[in-house]
């Protein structure tokens, strides 16, 4: 019995156990590394030695890599990732089977968001058709756009001659007709916008005898859904060759880079224009509704010289706006109020004088591109929002600004007379 038991008795070596427990013991390494295989506890459970996990980092601190080596690059790239420019994969079309032509608006010489949506739609149409197609963008006038490649343009036809400048729909139409005969595009896409896309598209449709889909918002290569009856009905129809697309018709291209190879067009004959552009006419800025004004000079509590403010608006050619305080105090009419309770403005440039920026006001100017603040308080919300903030007395700064603008107007009229002469 005792002999039988002596076989089962687990002989413990208390000294070895003690050394194994004591990591600082000089023999610790040899004792622990002796049993490298899996260690099972008295109940048969697999035991892990936590002291063996991980490694000692460069500054003497133990690091445990729990990502199992998956985060190889993450630690390194952390600092540099902000500066790193991600190169999108290049989408190349060699010898395209067909073309989809997009005629962007190019407001101010740049692709608008609407234009980019239309280019995205063009790629969707190419994906739905057989063969490999290319998006050909036809751009009129001086182009300032630098990112045709990431917008999704495969081929680029820039018509920058002087006779495409200004309002010349007939000359542009002649060029488009030439594109039609040269490229025989599978689809013609225009943005259905007031910036000229709708006009040019309608002209081309009438000239080449296509029946266009107008205000199309859900388009694939077979069927398209367009708004009809002033936007109150949906017309489902087969997709025609010429489409005028509503805003947000498709998602813009953002995951690929495209070639934007320049292409040439044979000389377009100069058309005898029946419409003669006489240029833009000066408009009374205060007759433009506040919601669509391009340039707003807005007044708040910091204005004390109201006559000066009105003359500044007049000489700058800005539409007047006001904060709620200025309206409540009776200095400005209620319809001039900008903000959540007043008008939500879409101005490109918003010059806020003496407005510190209540949240309701900031909501109202959410869509403005460039905000300029004149304020005495450098810590106010308007200064944080503004692209250019000027800290100082509004009366003095407005006075200087009026002087500059008056000089500019005087030069302009002198120059205009010289041009006319």
């Amino acid at each position, binding site marked *: 019995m005792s002999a039988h038991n002596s076989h089962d008795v687990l002989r413990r070596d208390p000294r070895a156990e003690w050394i194994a427990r004591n990591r600082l013991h000089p023999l610790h390494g040899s004792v622990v590394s002796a049993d490298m295989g899996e260690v099972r506890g008295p109940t048969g459970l697999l035991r892990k030695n936590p002291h063996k996990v991980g490694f000692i980092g460069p500054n003497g601190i133990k690091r445990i890599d729990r990502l199992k080596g998956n985060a190889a690059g993450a630690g390194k790239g952390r600092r540099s990732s902000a500066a790193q420019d991600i190169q999108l994969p290049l989408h190349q079309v060699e010898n395209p089977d067909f073309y989809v032509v997009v005629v962007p608006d190019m407001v101010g010489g740049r692709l608008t968001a609407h234009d980019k949506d239309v280019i995205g739609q063009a790629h969707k149409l190419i994906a739905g058709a057989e063969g490999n197609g290319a998006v050909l963008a036809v751009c009129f006038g001086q182009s300032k756009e630098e990112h045709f490649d990431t917008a999704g343009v495969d081929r680029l036809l820039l018509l920058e001659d002087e006779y495409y400048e200004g309002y010349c729909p007939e000359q542009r139409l002649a060029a488009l007709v030439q594109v039609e005969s040269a490229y025989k595009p599978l689809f013609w896409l225009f943005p259905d916008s007031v910036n000229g896309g709708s*006009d040019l598209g309608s002209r081309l449709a009438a000239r080449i005898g296509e029946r266009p889909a*107008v205000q199309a918002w859900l388009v694939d290569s077979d069927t398209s859904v367009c708004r*009809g*009856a002033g936007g109150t009905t949906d017309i489902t129809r087969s997709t025609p060759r010429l489409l005028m697309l509503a805003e947000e018709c498709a998602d813009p291209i*953002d995951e690929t880079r495209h070639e934007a190879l320049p292409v040439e067009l044979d000389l377009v004959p100069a058309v005898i224009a029946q*419409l003669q552009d006489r240029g833009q006419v000066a408009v009374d800025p205060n007759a433009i509704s506040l919601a669509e004004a391009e340039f707003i000079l807005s007044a708040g509590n910091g204005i004390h010289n109201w006559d000066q403010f009105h003359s500044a608006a007049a000489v700058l050619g800005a539409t007047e706006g006001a904060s709620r305080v200025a309206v409540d105090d009776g200095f400005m009419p209620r319809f001039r109020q900008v903000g959540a309770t007043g008008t939500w403005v879409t101005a490109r440039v918003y010059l806020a004088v003496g407005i510190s920026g209540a949240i309701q006001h900031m909501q109202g100017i959410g869509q403005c591109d460039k905000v300029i603040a004149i304020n005495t308080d450098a810590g106010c919300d308007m200064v944080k929002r503004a692209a250019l*903030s*000027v800290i100082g007395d509004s009366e003095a700064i407005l006075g200087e600004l009026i002087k500059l603008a008056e000089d500019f107007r005087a030069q302009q009229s002198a120059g205009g007379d010289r041009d006319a002469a």
Partner: protein
Amino acid sequence: MPSNLPEVIGMQPNQFNVDVANKLKVVSLVSVGKHPQSGRMRRADQDSRAVELGLKLTGDNHSGESLTVLHAGDPSEPSLRSYAGMGLKSVRVLQLDPAADAILPLGQHLQQCGADIVLTGVRAESGESSGMVPYQLAEKLGWPIVPRVADIVSVKGGVAEVLQALPRGQRRSVMVRLPFIASVDSAAPEARQSAFGPASRALMDIEVVSASVDDVRQAWEEAAARKRPKRLKVVKAKTAAERFKAATAKSQGDGGKVMKNESAAEQAQAIFDLLKEEGVLR
């Protein structure tokens, strides 16, 4: 800009000078409108502005002598009379089948009656509302088309000076030789009220014409407008840190240039330069 142009065009009706007004022949094309909220038939907004502009061109005191208001479609439509209620003696109607294509008979009629200026709305409020009618007529007749007209300032020696409505309330001046077609924008002067008595007394001058049926349209399906899905801001982040950044980053918190200690003249100069760079000082 030439000096004879008006410097400032406000909302006030400006003085209109026509030296050939007695010979000028204006045709306003009208359609049956639909109220955007109630869906009731009415006079179309832009078309009634076209009639108003036509009345201004031909002079009200002649009670619309050389203005023809023309409609192609069903003459028994009651909302047509509300155009007549703007002070017209009669409304010309080319009676057509509702499914017919109106372009051909309209073009023939315009050519026969020798119109100088044809005014239409930009887009109809019912039907396809593609806005193609003025373009197709212009192509058929070989006339120029001026889209989105806000006003016709003058007609002198067979040349009209037209103000076009641009986005953001801007106006462009365009010279065009008669005859031409213009589509009238919503920025044009608002139409006068329609009076019920004159509207019911007005004569409907009906001419029955035949036109081919618009076959293409028969295959279309029309339904009430579906609500369009709103575009969501999609964050294409690959790691949790990027997602966190996209969710918490302030969209407008980058902060611009702050000028604190400069003199007022320097500060004003900086503002002025920015305004010029943005192109808002014209």
